[in-house]
């Protein structure tokens, strides 16, 4: 969903066409599951559509919704992980990337969310904190814990 902050489309269909791929990608990265990410993106689109006339920044609303729905999908995520683990070995065909992604998917969802928002969505710590409704210090410590885990296992 990069580069969509300035989207001022008034036509929902156009917005849908433009932003769904990004929402799916973000949902994929946040949940660790392609299918669950797609569902989250679609559900987020429904939320956007419901309030289309009220939302000043649909792209930001969509992103926030994807993040929140991904968090609430934790239970299904556990189930999806089990399924995906069997099929993820050749996800990108780039060994070190696939290996890192596997480690990312094993992180607690809060830690992965912070990493995805920081290093995929290019958000600052303050923006992430604002997005998640958490203190910046909490975001920072969450990221520290995530990176500490990853540094031990990254290729």
């Amino acid at each position, binding site marked *: 969903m990069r580069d969509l902050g300035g989207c001022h489309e008034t036509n929902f269909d156009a917005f849908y066409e433009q932003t769904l791929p990004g929402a799916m990608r973000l949902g994929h990265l946040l949940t660790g599951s392609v299918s669950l*990410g*797609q569902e989250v993106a679609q559900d987020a689109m429904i939320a956007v559509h419901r309030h289309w006339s009220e939302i000043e920044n649909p792209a930001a609303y969509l992103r926030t*919704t994807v993040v929140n729905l991904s968090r609430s999908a934790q*239970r299904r995520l556990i189930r999806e992980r089990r399924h995906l683990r069997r099929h993820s070995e050749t*996800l990108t065909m780039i060994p070190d990337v696939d290996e890192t992604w596997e480690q990312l998917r094993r992180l607690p969802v809060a830690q992965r969310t912070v990493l995805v928002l920081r290093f*995929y969505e290019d958000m600052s*710590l303050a923006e992430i904190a604002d997005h998640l409704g958490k203190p910046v210090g909490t975001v920072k410590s969450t990221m520290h814990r995530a990176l500490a885990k990853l540094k031990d296992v*990254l290729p």
Partner: protein
Amino acid sequence: MTDSDFSIDEQVEAHLRRTLSEVALTTPFAITQARSELHRTNHRVLTMAAGVLLVAGAVGLVVIAEQVDEPSQVLDVTDSDPVPTPAEASNQAGGRLLSTPVRSDVQPIITIERTDWRVASSESGAAAESTPSTGCPGCGARRLVLNGGGSNFGGPLFTAWTLDAVYDLARLDQLVMVGAVEGRANVSPPSTPVVQMRVTIGWSIDANRTAFVDASRMTPEQALELAAQLTFEGDIPALATPPVGFEKIGQSDASFGEQRVVRLTDGKRSLDVFATNEGVHGLLNWRNPFAHLFLNVTRSRIVDGAVVLVDVDDAPDRIGGYWVAGGWGYRADGAGFGSESEFLDVLGDLRLTDVPNTNQEEAMPLTYEQFDSVTGWKTQDDT
């Protein structure tokens, strides 16, 4: 605190950025496919709704839809069912979860009568907002629910409730007339790919009371016509003569908003059971993230005499179903099942117990997403 306070190995950062970008590129775009899937689902639902409306002149409404092969079976949705007292409920240990009515003020403690299965986690809690307010007028509201979709809830649904407060109706999109009274409505345009079937209407019925209607699979005109016939003498709106083909769904017991989430597994398959103490109302409520019966197309199945509505459209390795017993409505989400019958067999082995589960394998915080019917959805942090 700024980002500069946070040092990170550049190599690690670069690797993470590359990984996330590469993985993101593997996400299927699938707009056409997604649209097609949504249209296909909606088309089926709309076809069913159209069928319902066409035969609305008949007293006995029969919903004919593909794969709905047992339409004569109905969910246990009225409040006339024998419900036990709390003392009686505690004596129901061993009763089938599918068919044992549990009062809405008694938490159903769920277990399974299978030696190879276990309860992985079990949690209960209250919804964030269990009473209507101006911030969330649909939360916890006691509603009139009229079902025009027969036993599978596959057709028009009309719900109405009131808020004992003044509500800023300007938050709804369009000016409409509810009979002779001015109101406002949100209408999902039929041309959009994701929401074609929902109409929300709000209007003031006196100086300190606001009425709301939430309808699915109906046109705005149809919803407004029914809204104009509502009366508001009691706590719950009433419709003296429901339209032919619609049936009123009995209100469940009081004390709304309690939920229980239980995860069971045998190591290969898993079952998430979501229970809400609003009976079928909870399964039809937009704000309940686990209850999509308002939109889903289902087929009815009988398990040991209990009716389970099984989702028609579900992924091959996933399957879901709904049922109601007493004051509780249930949604079961299965994964890893080889067939529908396998899924239903496991549902049939779910039991009530009076022993709280202690064998949780992981602490799983609950997150409730509040899909409010008027103001939109809001979230509550993990509890």
